[in-house]
């Protein structure tokens, strides 16, 4: 099989607890100090084809942002590799590829408050030779317009804009690097609902016009359904189910996916139940001490003995549809 456009190959990320000097000394001397690493991302393999949008869904703390940051080349994986077009994103601890860019969750933190919008957008392209000093203003104006902003905004500072406008500036900055891939880490989570729709539509438009491959990380199932071609569901650092969007939303196979979809608050126009939603029972276990067997078994309504002892592998259960559950078929 030829390699996909983006290939995420058995990627791991473990965070070791930072020990103080004293802890390090006593642990060397044999005292028992908590040194177990957190498995933030635990062996994820994903393929994304060019021009497709992958939605990455999961509860907070499941490792989806960590995975996104590894794909974007911000964090180095502990093991495994992320490749675009066969080339690794990171080399020697540094990002080696400008074709993958990131949109962050909080547009109030992701723009340098002391730089003008034009300088924020032009900085990367100037540093990488995508634009020159002479063509800077026109270059910035083109990308501001592409992100739905007025070119005159280039002379202002980030604090003069609203959240939605700031997120558009962040999008313009990412686009100005002429990327093939955009990693969007909860790009609409901190925006008002009315603004969310505008930004989501902007992503759809960009994908259509510029054939950009999107990796869309979100906990909002309806937004993900709207933008994604494929969806991957994460739980405790692992992919539990992945497949074409419609398949996942209409015929989920993993009990966690079913639970997630059912837990979305819905308004039903029935006489007896106006508001109806079922939360998944229990809490997410600590990633420091994940349960034995299937990580989901303590919260799973259909768990059997096998689930408590044996770890289910992600297996193909339909065309392009994988699930990590012993009972799925």
């Amino acid at each position, binding site marked *: 099989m030829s390699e996909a456009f983006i290939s995420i190959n058995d990627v791991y990320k473990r965070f070791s607890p930072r020990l103080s000097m004293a802890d390090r000394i006593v642990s060397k001397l044999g005292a028992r100090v908590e040194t177990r690493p957190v498995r933030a991302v635990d062996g994820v393999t994903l393929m994304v084809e060019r021009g497709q949008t992958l939605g990455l869904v999961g509860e907070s703390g499941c490792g989806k942002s960590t995975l996104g940051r590894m794909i974007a080349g*911000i964090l180095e994986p502990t093991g495994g590799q992320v490749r675009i077009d066969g080339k690794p994103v990171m080399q020697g601890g540094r990002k080696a590829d400008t074709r993958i*860019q990131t949109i*962050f969750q909080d547009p109030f*933190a992701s723009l340098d408050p*002391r*730089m003008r919008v034009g300088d924020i957008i032009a900085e990367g392209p100037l*540093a990488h030779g995508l634009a020159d000093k002479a063509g800077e203003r026109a270059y910035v104006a083109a990308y501001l317009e592409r992100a739905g902003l007025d070119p005159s905004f280039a002379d202002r500072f980030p604090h003069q804009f609203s959240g939605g406008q700031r997120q558009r500036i962040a999008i313009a900055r990412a686009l100005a690097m002429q990327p093939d891939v955009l990693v969007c880490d909860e790009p609409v989570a901190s925006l008002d609902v009315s603004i969310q729709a505008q930004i989501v539509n902007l992503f759809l438009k960009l994908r259509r016009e510029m054939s950009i491959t999107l990796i869309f990380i979100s906990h909002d199932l309806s937004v993900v359904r709207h933008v994604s071609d494929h969806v991957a569901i994460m739980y405790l650092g692992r992919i539990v189910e992945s497949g074409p969007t419609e398949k996942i939303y209409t015929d989920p196979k993993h009990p966690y996916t079913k639970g997630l979809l059912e837990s979305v608050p819905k308004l039903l126009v029935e006489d007896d139940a106006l508001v109806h939603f079922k939360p998944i029972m229990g809490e997410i276990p600590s990633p420091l001490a994940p349960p034995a067997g299937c990580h989901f078994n303590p919260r799973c309504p259909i768990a059997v003995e096998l689930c408590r002892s044996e770890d289910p592998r992600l297996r193909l259960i339909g065309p392009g549809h994988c699930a990590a559950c012993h009972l799925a078929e």
Partner: protein
Amino acid sequence: MTTKAVSPWRNLWIRFCEDRIALGALIVVAIILVLALFAPLIAPQDPYDLSGLSLRDARRPPGFVGSGAYVHWLGTDAQGRDLWSAILYGLRVSIQIGIFAGAVGLIIGTTVGILAAYHRGIAETVLMRIIDLQLSFPPILLALVLVAVLGQGKAQLIAALVAAQYAYFARTAFGAASAERSKDYIEAAMATPLSNMRIVFRHILPNAMPALIVVATVQVAYAIALESTLSFLGLGLPVTEPSLGMLISNGVKYMMSGRYWISVYPGIALIVLIVAINLVGDHVRDILNPRLNR
């Protein structure tokens, strides 16, 4: 939304001017700076020119008309120096040393602090432990020891002051840079990717700058006080170039005999300078403190 682009620096200046005391203090600092800078033009006498001094004019009270046929408005000292002239020249020396020591300390300390904050890990551990160790010494002690070892002179004095003070700059730079380092826009810069140099100079340094300016103003005032202390103890500059501390020290022995002016006037000059600088620094800190923001 305003249509005019107001830069964060300009914003800072506008807010600074809203406080009258701080603005007054800034004006006082500016006046003293001008007086010190143009001392040779303003002062009626060159206090360094020993041949121009006459012992007949020694220890005269304010208002005395001496052999130079001009009024000694602040009196004269034990060598017959005009105190007004001596204070102007003394301010010149004190400010020169304070600013020089502050600037060198700022550069060294900021480099150390930002290096530690940016690279984290082993660099942070080693550098910041050294800084902590230094901060646990009283700066006056460190400066005293260094001056005693290095000897007298301007360069030695500045070296001693820098060694005693750079740790404060390093601590502040480290704190400010660490806070900026963990913000998304630095991550965005690394994800572009931009070079480390560019991230440090274009993003971290400008955003850490306001905090550093506050420390710098306060530390310049402190360097001036420290230098005066050393000179008062006779460990600072040579007698031929009296700084404010030495003028005060020269007058102390005449305090009890009623010749108060030799110590008091240089003392007032020193206090006014230090208080004014501190007022300016404090107000800048208040503006920058997000908890006091309206």
